[in-house]
């Protein structure tokens, strides 16, 4: 590895070291060191229910993400293609964009009860307007020249969608899912904290009441690790694969 490639590693190791020294100096229950937190994660994984809680939260993230991307993409593409529809829906889009996540969550629980569907629906609804805005831009940026080419050559609707439209939208899907996954998992924790009997958010709430900072940091770290794994093992390789035609030397 070159020197530049080591920089992120050095940066992370430096942070952990700083954390260790800080915790040693503080000697407080409210600032446990990295060793104590790792030990907690290890213990909870073996004897507690950390993995179950992570799994439950992850499933909620995936479900909300899928719902938000699907509905948001359909609405966004339609709005980008149809100016009349855009004029009708645009004010609602702005309202939804500016509505605090907390309001949506509370109303969803009040109106639909403290259940899974309300939780996932509330999270998705928080993300949908961002997806709509991004994919609307994508639909507007579609190249009319390529569209004419596809029509002149009588490409079938499916072939045109797969070979002409979808690759043009790919960067917009990537942008929407990138910002989506991080936004969604934060909101999922709030939803769990307010009205679910399980998940990482529920555990955080519980341990907050117990003032168990070690548990709070342990759960946070564990879930961040899961999200990092998704980013590096799933999102980035997928993105590299779908943009492999770009950045080729001429």
């Amino acid at each position, binding site marked *: 590895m070159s020197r530049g490639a080591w920089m992120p590693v050095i940066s992370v190791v430096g942070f952990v070291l700083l954390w260790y020294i800080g915790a040693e100096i503080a000697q407080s229950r409210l600032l446990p060191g990295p060793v104590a937190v790792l030990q907690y994660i290890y213990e909870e994984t073996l004897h507690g229910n950390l993995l179950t809680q992570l799994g439950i939260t992850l499933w909620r993230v995936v479900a909300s993400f899928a719902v938000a991307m699907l509905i948001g993409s359909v609405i966004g593409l339609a709005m980008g293609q149809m100016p009349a529809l855009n004029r009708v829906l645009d004010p609602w889009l702005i309202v939804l964009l500016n509505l605090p996540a907390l309001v949506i969550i509370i109303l969803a629980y009040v109106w639909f009860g403290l259940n899974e569907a309300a939780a996932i629906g509330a999270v998705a609804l928080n993300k949908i307007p961002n997806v709509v805005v991004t994919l609307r831009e994508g639909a507007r940026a579609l190249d009319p*020249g*390529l569209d*004419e080419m596809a*029509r*002149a*050559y*009588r490409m079938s609707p499916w072939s045109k969608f797969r070979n002409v439209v979808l*690759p043009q939208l790919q960067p917009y899907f990537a942008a929407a899912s990138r910002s989506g996954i991080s936004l969604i998992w934060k909101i999922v924790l709030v939803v769990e904290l307010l009205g679910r009997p399980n998940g990482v958010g529920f555990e955080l709430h519980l341990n907050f009441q117990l003032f168990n900072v070690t548990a709070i940091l342990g759960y946070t770290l564990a879930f961040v690790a899961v999200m990092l794994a998704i980013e590096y093992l799933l999102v980035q390789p997928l993105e590299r694969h779908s943009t492999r035609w770009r950045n*080729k030397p001429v």
Partner: protein
Amino acid sequence: MGADGTELTAIRDLTLDLKPESMTVLMGPSGCGKTTLLRIVAHLDDRFIGEVEFPSDARIGFMFQEPRLLPWRTVRQNIELVAAPGFTEEELDRLARSVGLTEMLPRYPQELSLGLARRVALARAFATKPDLLLLDEPFVSLDEKTADRLRRLLLDVWSARPTTAVMVTHNAREAILLADQLVLLAPRPTHVVAIETIDVPQAERDPKMIEALHSDLLQRFPANFSGL
């Protein structure tokens, strides 16, 4: 439809008879609706009132002013995607060889020069085994040498598989080199000034003959040939 949303009549009362397996070249000043005409024939323009006696499910090969290749598909995929049903691997290889693209098949369009990208567009147009080939200034903005080589390639591929073709161009010498039937147009609304038939087979047209024909046409139709 004009850029300001008002309706424009670009073309009125225009009839063209195309002889099968012949090359018709449309020539006229900028803005005289040549491109619009091609788009109407290809059923790309829905706001046109009139008749195109040409089934909308017929196979069309269209070379646009820009190559219009899909940058995320390889050269091979670009050609295969629109190729006629039953277009075989061998046919594709033969077509690629005839336009000098064999080496380029696994590459992406971004790696190609404009001249090479135009060759791909040419191969793609023929891969559809078109009933009608439409060429909208396909060799514009190339240097003269490259353009000339591409014209020869077009003639080669075209004579290997004779196809009814309509081409639009600004370039008088290009028109004289390629046309069986030369249609001179005038603008607003577009109408036919004259139709010239060139009987000499394309392969036998040498520079001397092209120059002679050019100066003759320049004399008779100064509006269409001056400054070109």
